[in-house]
């Protein structure tokens, strides 16, 4: 494998990581601040993608579809909060997992009822179409660069809000000790609603940004949700910084594993078993990494919650 190819693969890993961060950021916020396991975060990502594809088909423009899809994601998120999630905050994690799993089933089926079962597409906006040749015969799509930029911008903005503003201070305080925050006279319910709305918007944003690359279909959020949980567990639940670093880590491990493992296995196995074993091991690497992190740092790389 040449050095160029390795660099290209590292870039690919980075980009997958940034996309994972967009999904994981909302999840870790909600989980960290509200101590609420929202399995439905994946379907909120899916709804963002569907709304994006839907509005783009009507308006004929990605740039009009993006804000509309964000508003739609926000509205649906708030509706879910009022109808379902609000009643679960005080319950234990099992009840939350069951109820939000129910939301997954209902929304996956609902999406099918509204948009049909066939996959849909959101075209790449003309402004970001095309690519840059990064190695002979391979173009790096401009839209993927836009995803990296959007992810970095989101990370920066979230960091700024969480670390440098009063709301951010409350969020950090809420993540560490919500009862104390409430005792100090902060309206925790309003704080929760704000955090939840941000999480829903982030999920929707990730969905819209992913839709031009991935297939928009029922159940598309489920795979992403699992990876997002891996990210927040590695990063430390509730930590934006942890989510960012863990997402990049997971993206890199996954991509480099997929591209290098079959070749590495060839050192000890014959070609055809090396390919299959390499592929199988590569798909496990992320979870192996998570297990390793949990073994040495049970609270993740950047633990937030105080004892």
């Amino acid at each position, binding site marked *: *494998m*040449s050095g160029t*190819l390795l660099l*290209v*693969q590292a870039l*690919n*890993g980075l*980009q*997958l990581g940034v*996309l994972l961060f967009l999904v994981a950021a909302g999840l870790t916020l909600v989980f960290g601040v509200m101590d609420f396991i929202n399995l439905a975060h994946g379907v909120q990502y899916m709804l963002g993608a569907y709304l994006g594809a839907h509005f783009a088909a009507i308006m004929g423009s990605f740039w009009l579809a993006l804000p509309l899809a964000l508003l739609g994601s926000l509205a649906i998120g708030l509706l879910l909060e009022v109808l379902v999630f609000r009643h679960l905050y005080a319950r234990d994690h099992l009840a939350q997992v069951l109820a939000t799993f129910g939301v997954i089933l209902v929304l996956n*089926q609902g999406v*099918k009822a509204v948009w*049909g*079962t*066939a*996959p*849909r*597409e959101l*075209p*790449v906006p003309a402004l970001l179409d095309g*690519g840059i*040749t990064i*190695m*002979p*015969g*391979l*173009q*790096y*799509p401009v*839209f*993927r660069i836009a995803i990296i930029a959007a992810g970095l911008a989101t990370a920066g903005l979230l960091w700024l809000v969480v670390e440098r503003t009063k709301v951010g201070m409350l969020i950090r305080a809420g993540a560490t000790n919500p009862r104390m925050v409430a005792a100090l006279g902060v309206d925790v319910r309003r704080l929760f609603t704000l955090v939840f709305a941000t999480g829903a918007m982030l999920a929707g944003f990730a969905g819209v940004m992913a839709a*031009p*690359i*991935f*297939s*928009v*279909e*029922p*159940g*598309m959020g489920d*795979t*992403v949700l699992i990876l997002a949980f891996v990210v927040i567990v590695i990063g430390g639940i509730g930590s934006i910084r942890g989510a960012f670093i863990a997402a990049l880590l997971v993206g890199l491990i996954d*991509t*480099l594993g*997929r*591209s290098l493992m*079959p070749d590495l296995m060839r050192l000890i196995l014959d070609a*055809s078993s090396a*390919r*299959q074993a390499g*592929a*199988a091991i*590569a*798909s496990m690497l992320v979870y192996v990494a998570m297990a390793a992190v949990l073994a040495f740092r049970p609270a993740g790389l950047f633990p937030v919650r105080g004892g």
Partner: protein
Amino acid sequence: MTGIGRRGLMGASAGLLAAPMLARAQGTPVKIGLVAVLTGPQAALGTQLRDGFQQALRHLDNRLGGRPVEVVLIDDELRPEVAVTKVRAAIERDRVDFVIGVVFSNILAAVMRPVTEANTFLISTNAGPSTFAGRGCNPFFFTTSYNNDQVHSVMGQAAQDSNYRRVFVMTPNYQAGRDAVAGFKSRFRGEVVDEVFVPLNQLDFSAELAKIAAARPDAIFTFMPGGLGVNLVRQYRQAGLANIPFLSTFTVDEATLPAQGEAALGFYSAASWAPNMPIEANQRFVRDFEAQFSYVPATYAAQAYDGAMLVDSALKRTGGSTADKDALRAALRAADFQSVRGNFRFGANHYPVQDFWLCQVARRPDGKFQTETVRKVLENSTDPYAAECRMR
């Protein structure tokens, strides 16, 4: 004395009873258990299958062999244990005369014994695994699709015919993916530059696309069903690789084209049917199907349409009766109907003997996308397992 009397009475009444009984056979509905996956990520394929069958019933005035039809719709949920439970219920409680449909091979394998051991005919309109084509062939089993291996080998032959020397192969890492590679290689004589296996839940192909660019093959061969194929096709185009011919099976078809759109333009697939085939029965099917369901039918729909037409032709031959299984089997085997594919007959293992085509994605004048035939690759092709079948 009494015995003779009773026998005489029966003999006398037989003539009288025969007429109303025939009339009743004509009047009672023939019951069909239609099995398709209608929920979950692969539901689009099951929906195609269901709609193709429904379209055939519309063309037949909701009658099969002159008898009214009652369809028991079974959603297999792509879960073998669910499929078995529901199909058993359809046979034992609803007493269906035929079980038709089935998109996926693992579902077919699960329902095979429950259906055929109840002496009920099972007609697969999509799944065509090699298990039931060779030694495992069954007198109560027919398929109107193909043997899976055939489709992959057609692409191997097409690559051979196009004089591609170096081909890059990429499939998901599970049994069907490995079968696809084997099928392709069975007819391709050139060099396979690299074989890449990806997990079934793969999202991002950029690592693999970089590998393809580095290998610079004459063509790639891939089998990426459903959403996998949508992701791959769009990312392949976005990575500027579309100048490398994209040979595929079950990756670009009318079920995925609405989402792949322009990105799939010019990509190749192998099939025994395409919507543009200039056969009268096919044009009528495609036109009326689109008018009814407002989307372009794929092979799943076409083969289900043929499945209904097959049953109709068989029941016409037996006068609507399903009682004599041997007569019904002979009538099914005759395949006396006009397939939307043109040439169609059954081999000794009840799998079709048919032509296979190289197809290519094209944009129609109305802006929709469909696969269109490029050239015939195999003629009257029998699957490689038929010789092993000893029908008992």
